């Protein structure tokens, strides 16, 4: 029942996503689909690490799945981080630039 309660809480939290308008069945089912899609697709993508190391892929995928399931609801958090705020967009742009540049400069030959 714990997981059921957790999912039920997720549905209740979706209300915040659609405020100030009404929350329809289609909106809730869409958000639940997004939640499940996000978890499954990230876990599936993590399996790609098997091309680096099979053991690493197994451990990372398992850990990621556990972290994601225990962190639901993810979509409200994702949506807050990806709103139209210039500060957040700039933050993620600069972080991405720094990561790519550092990774390429010092680690570009490793892959």
């Amino acid at each position: 029942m714990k997981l059921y309660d957790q999912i039920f809480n997720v549905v209740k939290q979706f209300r915040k996503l659609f405020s100030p308008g009404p929350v329809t069945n289609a909106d809730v089912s869409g958000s639940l689909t997004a939640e499940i899609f996000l978890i499954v697709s990230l876990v599936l993508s993590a399996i790609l690490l098997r091309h680096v190391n099979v053991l690493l892929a197994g451990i990372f995928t398992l850990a990621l799945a556990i972290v994601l399931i225990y962190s639901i609801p993810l979509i409200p958090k994702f949506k807050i981080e990806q709103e139209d705020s210039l500060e957040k967009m700039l933050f993620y742009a600069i972080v991405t630039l720094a990561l790519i540049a550092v990774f390429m400069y010092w680690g570009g030959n490793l892959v």
Partner: protein
Amino acid sequence: MNELIPLMVIVPLMAALLISAFSKFNTVTKIFAFVVAICLPLIPLLSNYGLHYFGGYEPILDGAANMMYHPAITYSFTFLQQIFIGAIGLLTFLVIFIYLTKYRKVSGPYLFLLFLGTAAVTAMILTDDIFHMFVFFEILALAQVGIVAASSIDYSYEMALKYMVLGSIGSPMMLLGIGFLLALTGSVNVTDIAAAVHNGLVDATSPVFLLSLALIFFGWLYASGLPPFHTIKSGIYSKAEPHGAALLQSFTVISMISIVLIMFRIYASLPIFEVLIVFFSILAMILGVSLALTQTDFRRMIGFLAVGELGFIGLGIGLGTNFSITAGLFQALNEIVITALLFIGFGAIVNATNEVDTRKLGGLLAYHPKVAIMLLIGGLAMAGVPPLSGFQSKLMLVQASLSCGFPEISILAIMVSIATFVVFVKTYYTMFLKPKPNDLELEGKEVPRAMIFAMGVLLIIVILLGIFPDVVTNGISNFVGGIL
């Protein structure tokens, strides 16, 4: 030499300048814009394949090193350029046709921006000069900002300004990367740079070369709207006029493939290059579709779906085989057509209802059946339902990733297609099939015929490309064989 090749850029560029200068003559401006818009898809169809050297400076053979050098800015026109310039020309024509029929008094500056953007992307896909590409990339960014700012939608100025601020990070980084390449190779001609890298004249493992990839790659992310720029890209689509958004997304797709093909020719020898492309493409697919599922503004929803579809293009190119790149480029062509169809179709609904919130809409099937049916087919094409064009390109991508040894990516691509289908069915149901809300006024509001005409033309292309994909894929495959 083929003089029609530079005309593909010069005609829209000159039209932009002339319309801007003489915009106070309304009727003349309308006629002139219409005539130029008709010419745009015709020029690439009439032109022969070949190269054009600006200034007439032909390549020079260095006998000692047995290498060719290209002193001129070179335009290369092949089948790939022909179909993409033809597609953008046709789309520009349709968008300008919609705009001219919508307003009695047209805005010269707005038409200027539409033609300027078309000229810029055409130059980007034709050029073999990386600095020339960058100049038009900057012009394109300004045209995009202008098209968004010129729309009458609330907060469009704000969104345009944000896009410009983010561009002030992305563009200089790309220029810096090009500067590093120039320092390493002494050339900005892509063929010369690629030859220097492949002949071992440049150390491909040097940190400066790798850093140049990082910086140009970051600029490409900005141009393409892949994460972390997916939010702003979907934002500018939603704040532009619907016909403007249709053109904006095609600008994005063409600038994306133009830059990535240049990067591919230079950096393909580095495995990290393909890893980076696949990583960001998968991220775009996941984030784009996840966020589309939670939208209530249907323009924003299509914006996020468009970003997710960009991931498919990147995926094809990132896998790096002839078949996968062909699939990616075919997907790019399909996305231009399908997303334009959806933006124009949903724009027609905005036009008829003045409403963008799906929760306040309903029952539109009875009032606008033509738009409803064409949007349904367009949405199914985007989701990859046979026998439409989106199905063909996505099937090719799934096959390509399977044959490359990445079944996870194939499953992910199918999942994203299913999620896209869910997004579309949910939106379609709430807008067209559920009962009409009592407070929604629909009587007497018609959809402009120009929009229906544009949707019809795009729909025919979607169906034809779905039934006869070989017409395009064979030519693309030959092009890809040349760069691999």
